[in-house]
């Protein structure tokens, strides 16, 4: 517990980052990159685009850090920026896709069966995440991936604890419906 307690809060890191401390900003990136990436992935459905959008969102967040009114709720504020960046990128990609006439697929490096399976699973999970609404997606990522408690999710996203529970229940149900019941567990059971 002692070591965990020594971890600086988001509020403390935001305050230091506001004064240009690279270590503090790096701490925020390391702490929240996964959630930012998964939220973007759910919206964009492509790992490369999700990486672009989430990286862009962190830079944008730093530029507008003074607008973050409650630094202890930084992650909720950040995820809103991620959603906006992903939304903009998706619109841009749609326009570009419509104007591209010919795009020759580039051959990638050879993959093992295991890589193929993992990639296929990743695609299914991504497609399943895309079925959720924005709040459901944020709740299931914060709870099941980041390990947040309902109270923390409620504070972070500005919703009630009851709503956080409801969204989590709905999100899991939807994911299982889309993915099939045991596909994910069986895959990870070596």
């Amino acid at each position, binding site marked *: 517990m002692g070591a965990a307690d020594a971890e600086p809060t988001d509020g403390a890191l935001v305050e230091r*980052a506001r004064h240009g401390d690279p270590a503090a900003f790096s701490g925020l990136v390391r702490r929240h*990159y996964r959630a930012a990436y998964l939220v973007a992935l759910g919206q964009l459905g492509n790992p490369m685009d999700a990486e672009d959008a989430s990286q862009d969102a962190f830079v944008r967040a*730093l530029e507008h850090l003074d607008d973050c009114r409650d630094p202890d709720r930084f992650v909720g504020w950040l995820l809103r920026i991620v959603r906006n960046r992903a939304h903009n990128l998706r619109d841009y990609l749609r326009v570009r896709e419509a104007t591209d006439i010919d795009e020759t697929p580039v051959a990638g490096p050879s993959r093992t069966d295991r890589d193929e399976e993992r990639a296929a699973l990743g695609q299914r999970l991504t497609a399943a995440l895309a079925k959720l609404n924005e709040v459901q997606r944020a709740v299931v990522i914060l709870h099941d991936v980041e390990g947040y408690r309902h109270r923390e999710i409620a504070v972070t996203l500005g919703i009630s604890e009851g709503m956080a529970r409801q969204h989590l229940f709905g999100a899991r149900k939807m994911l299982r419906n889309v993915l099939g019941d045991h596909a994910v567990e069986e895959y990870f059971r070596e």
Partner: protein
Amino acid sequence: MNDRPNDPVDLSALDPTRDPARLERTVQAILDRAAPELARRRRGSTGILAELAGWRRPVLAAAAVVLVLGAGLLAGYEAIRPGSEETALTEAIGVPRQLAGWVAADGDRLPSAAAVLFGEPTSNE
């Protein structure tokens, strides 16, 4: 089929931090892009302008309070000043201030034509 519909769904296949080397590259890429802004903030946080900027909100709040109190005091003063209502009303309907003053001061004595035309003081004949 859904025996445990509310069990967590394992999303670890999507976790971008599974590969530490890749995560390091990503963090570094973000820090590289953020470097100019971090430098700007370091410069800004040490100058006198930053010090002044820090006082901007409290000073604006104090100014707003002073403005509201001042407006309140002025309105109160106007309300208790004798003759102010008549003057304000006559001004509002377009009667010259001087004429209104005569009416308010002495209602039964008319000003001379010269006083009305040239603004001369009323004679006490």
